[in-house]
């Protein structure tokens, strides 16, 4: 379980990252929090000739609220910082809610949001949250910066829309409006495990009714999976038990879960239905019940 041999370079600016990457000719790995990369190196699933340590690049750090009404979260923001930051709790509380579900405290202390999104594990929480909140991923490279909608960022198993010479600089989330509700639920065998199945859900609460839901599953596909048919079935509130049951049935149309070490497609479909009911409950079942 020892990593293979490689060189190590520490970058302090984006320009240095781009230069080192270009010189390595595609045979370099970026090191941010390292909480997935170091395991991949130990297993020799990844055998780069060069590790570029980007953890001290200042342009990748910081959390701020933009005049455009977005919360900008630097790629190097750790899970721990995400959960504790007042602006995150105020403007994108779903992220803070998701953090305790991610691995364990020792890993949350070092793992970063940019690393999690770039790694794009199919069972990871933050990619699904980004899709549910309609975040945009700010990618930067030698040819400049571009914003990629989260919905098109995740392109497959461990695959993203990043070009080879790009990296994630930040993630921008629309600041939550009054009435926005979001929650995340997942099922794991043990605390801190990757989810067998999970769901990030978002809706607007208007005139005492939930509406315009977005349901984004994780751990049931190659990446975050939007359950559009189920969301349309819920539609504008009230979300009666009948409507919820209909949405649960329609999940069969939205999800095509591959079997994994946890179980087969039928079990995953069952878990997805359970999660939908739980998420609806947490968002505030109607009529009558109002979440705080």
């Amino acid at each position, binding site marked *: 379980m020892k990593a293979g*041999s*490689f*060189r*190590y370079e520490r970058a302090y600016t984006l320009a240095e990252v781009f230069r080192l990457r270009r010189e390595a000719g595609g045979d370099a790995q970026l090191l941010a929090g390292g909480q997935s990369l*170091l395991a991949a190196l*130990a297993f020799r699933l990844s055998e780069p000739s060069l590790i570029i340590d980007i953890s001290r690049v200042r342009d990748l750090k910081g959390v701020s609220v933009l005049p455009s009404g977005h919360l900008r979260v630097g790629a190097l923001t750790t899970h721990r910082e995400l959960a504790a930051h007042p602006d995150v709790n105020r403007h994108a509380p779903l992220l803070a809610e998701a953090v305790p579900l991610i691995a364990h*405290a020792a890993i949350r202390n*070092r793992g970063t949001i940019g690393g999690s999104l770039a790694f794009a594990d199919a069972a990871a929480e933050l990619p699904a949250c980004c899709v549910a909140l309609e975040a945009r991923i700010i990618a930067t490279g030698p040819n400049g910066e571009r914003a990629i909608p989260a919905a098109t960022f995740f392109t497959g198993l461990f695959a993203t829309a990043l070009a080879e010479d790009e990296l994630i600089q930040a993630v921008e989330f629309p600041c939550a409006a009054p009435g926005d509700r979001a929650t995340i639920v997942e099922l794991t065998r043990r605390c801190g495990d990757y989810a067998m199945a999970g769901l990030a859900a978002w809706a607007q609460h208007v005139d005492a009714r939930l509406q315009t839901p977005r349901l984004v599953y994780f751990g049931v596909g190659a990446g975050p999976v939007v359950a559009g048919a189920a969301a349309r079935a819920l539609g504008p509130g009230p979300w009666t038990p009948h409507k919820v049951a209909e949405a649960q049935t329609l999940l069969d149309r939205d999800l095509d879960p591959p079997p994994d070490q946890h179980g087969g497609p039928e079990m995953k479909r069952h878990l997805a239905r359970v999660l939908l009911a739980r998420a609806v409950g947490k968002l505030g079942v109607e009529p009558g019940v109002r979440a705080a």
Partner: protein
Amino acid sequence: MSTEVAISLTVNGERISRRVEARRHLIDFLRLDLGLMGSRVGCEHGVCGACTVRVNGLIARGCLILAASLDGDSVETIEGVSDTGEIRDLQDAFVARNACQCGYCTPGMLLTAAELLRDVAHTGTTPTRAAIREHLSGNYCRCTGYHAIVDAVEAVGKARMSGSEGGKP
């Protein structure tokens, strides 16, 4: 081209400068280069928690950190934290409740528990058993002595909350 990296960091309060192989993780650095054997090598891929140490004041998996990346940083191991007496009450409670057994997971357990209980005296609240289990969930005990470990952590939390000497059953 060289695969060695020069680093200068603080380990248990002592300034250290070394050249390390780029691929060397923090635990091998501590054990093989510095002779600090308290931090354990377990799974070496971030699952078992036996290698838990503190980096810049926060617990981390030593096997998931390249020593080369720690230039200018501060590392604390079970040796350093024992010497300062910071977790004396936790250590006493682990002994009193036989929460060590083979002892392989103990340094990691102690440092992880210490982070959970760090603010107890300050906030006046102590974590529930469920919260303790959740916080320790990333640390495996292959003797499966979890119950005694949770007992010890809970007792120290309660003792710190009431400001008395802690951890004795």
